[in-house]
C-alpha cells in the first residue's frame, strides 16, 4: 500500500535531489518488473554518481541508444514513479535524463 503520510514526509528528500548533474556508473534494462511497475517495462535502472560525490539509484529515462553507456552525463528530474493504488495517490520521485 502507498501511504500518503510517507509520501508527504519524503517530499523533502526528493526536493533536495532535484536539478543535480552526474554520470551513469552502471545500468540495466529491466524486462521483468515487480508489481506496481508492469506498465512501464522494459525500463532502465541506473546507479548515478552525482557531481557532489553521492551515488543514487533511479530510473534513467528519455535516452537514445547512443546515450545508453557508462559515463553518460545525466541530470535529475521529477517524474511519476509507480502505478497508483486504490487510494489514488500518485507517487512522484527522482529519475535522470541525459544531458549532452
Amino acid at each position, binding site marked *: 500500500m502507498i501511504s500518503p503520510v510517507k509520501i508527504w514526509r*519524503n517530499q523533502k528528500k526528493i526536493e533536495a535531489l532535484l536539478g543535480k548533474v552526474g554520470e551513469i*556508473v*552502471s*545500468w*540495466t*534494462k*529491466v*524486462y*521483468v*518488473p*515487480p*508489481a*506496481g*511497475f*508492469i506498465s*512501464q517495462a522494459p*525500463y532502465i*535502472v*541506473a*546507479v*548515478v554518481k552525482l557531481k557532489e560525490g553521492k*551515488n*543514487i*539509484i*533511479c*530510473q534513467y529515462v528519455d535516452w537514445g541508444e547512443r546515450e545508453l553507456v*557508462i559515463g553518460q552525463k545525466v541530470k535529475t528530474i521529477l517524474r511519476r*514513479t*509507480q502505478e497508483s493504488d486504490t487510494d489514488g495517490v500518485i*507517487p512522484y*520521485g527522482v*529519475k535522470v535524463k541525459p544531458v549532452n
Partner: protein
Amino acid sequence: MTPVRILSGAVSKFGELWDVSPRDLVKEVVQKALTEAGLTTSSIDGVFVGNMLAGTLGNQDHLGAFFSEELGIFRGSISVEGACASGGLAVHSGVMAILSELYHHVLVIGVEKMTDHKPEDVAKGLMGAGSSAERESGATFPSLYALMAVAHMEKYGTTEEQMAAVSVKNHFHASLNPNAQFHTPITIEQVMKSSCIASPLKLLDCSPITDGAAAIILSKNKTKNEISIIASSVETDTLGVAERESLTSLASSVHASKEAYAQAGIKPSDIDVAEVHDCFSIAEILAMEDLGFFQKGEAAEAIFEGKTKLGSKKLVVNTSGGLKASGHPVGATGVKQIVEIYEQLKGKAGKRQVDGAKIGLTHNVGGSGATAVIHILRRN
C-alpha cells in the same frame, strides 16, 4: 571459536511443491533430523526458525510459536529474518545459543513457501530486502545484481559466457542431487539464448522461485565421528547497492570471511568444499573473489575452465547445485547449505561426494549484499 557440534541435518525436496504446506515441509525435515540424531522432541530446548516471506506473502508471522505448535516443542522458539540470509542468521543464532550455555540441544529450521504466489508479488516481496530508493526505481533483485555484473564486466572484462558457465556447472551438480529442483544439465548456448530478465542477466543466470525446508540439530555435547561448526560470522553493509564504495565486490562477504578464517585459524586454501550464494551467476563470481579463493578479476575464467567443478583436485563449489539449480527457498537456503557441507564431510553426499572433504564453508547473503553470513565446518 569453541566448536559447536552438528548432530544431524536434513533437507526436503526443493521445487514447486503445490500439495505441501510449510507445516508439512518443516515436520518432514525435523522428523528426519531427530531420527538421525537419535533424539526426541523432548530433548530440544531451543528452536530458531529462518524465514523471510511468510508474513508478506502468507500473512503468517510469529513463526517461532507457529512451528513449535506443529512440532509440540513448547520451549524457547525464535524466528529470525535477514532476507535471503535468514537461514544463515538462524544458524548463527543457534550457535550463539549453544555457546551461551543457556541451551543444550538447539533445532535450527529454514523454510520458505514461494510458489503459491504470483511472480510479480514474489518479486515485490523480495524487494522488501532492498532500500526505499531501489523500490521506488522499480528495481528487482535480478536488476541489482545486473548492475554489479555490468560494473564487473566493465572493470575486469568478465563475459556473459563466463557468467553462463556458473549456471552450467551448478546444473551439472544438481543433476546428481536427488533433492534439487532441477535435474537437467544445460549448456552455455541455452543460457545465452534464454530470455532476458535484467540485462545482461538472462533467465538461466537467475536462481528460481522455490519451496523447501531444511533443519539441523546443534549440541554442546561431544559425539563420535563429530562434525563441528568452527566459525560463525556475520557482517553487514548499506541496504542499497548505490551507497556502497564498490559495485564489483561485496564488502560484507570480504569482512565476514576474514573474520571466519580468523575464528577457525585457517586460510581460504584449506577449504575443500564450499556452498556459496549464487542467487545470480555473477554472485558466484563475486563470492569466489570476495572469499579469497581467487584474485579480483580471475574467478570468472577459472569457473569457465571448470576449476571449481566436481572432479577438480582443489576447492569444489556448490555441489548441491547451489541456489541456481538446487533451488532458492530464501529462508531455507542458509540452513540447506550447512546440511550439504555436513553430508560432504560425513562422506554421505552420494554421486556428488568430494573425496576426502575435511573442511567446508557456507556463504549466505541477504539482499544485494547488506548481510553476509559465513560458517566453516570441520570433520575431526
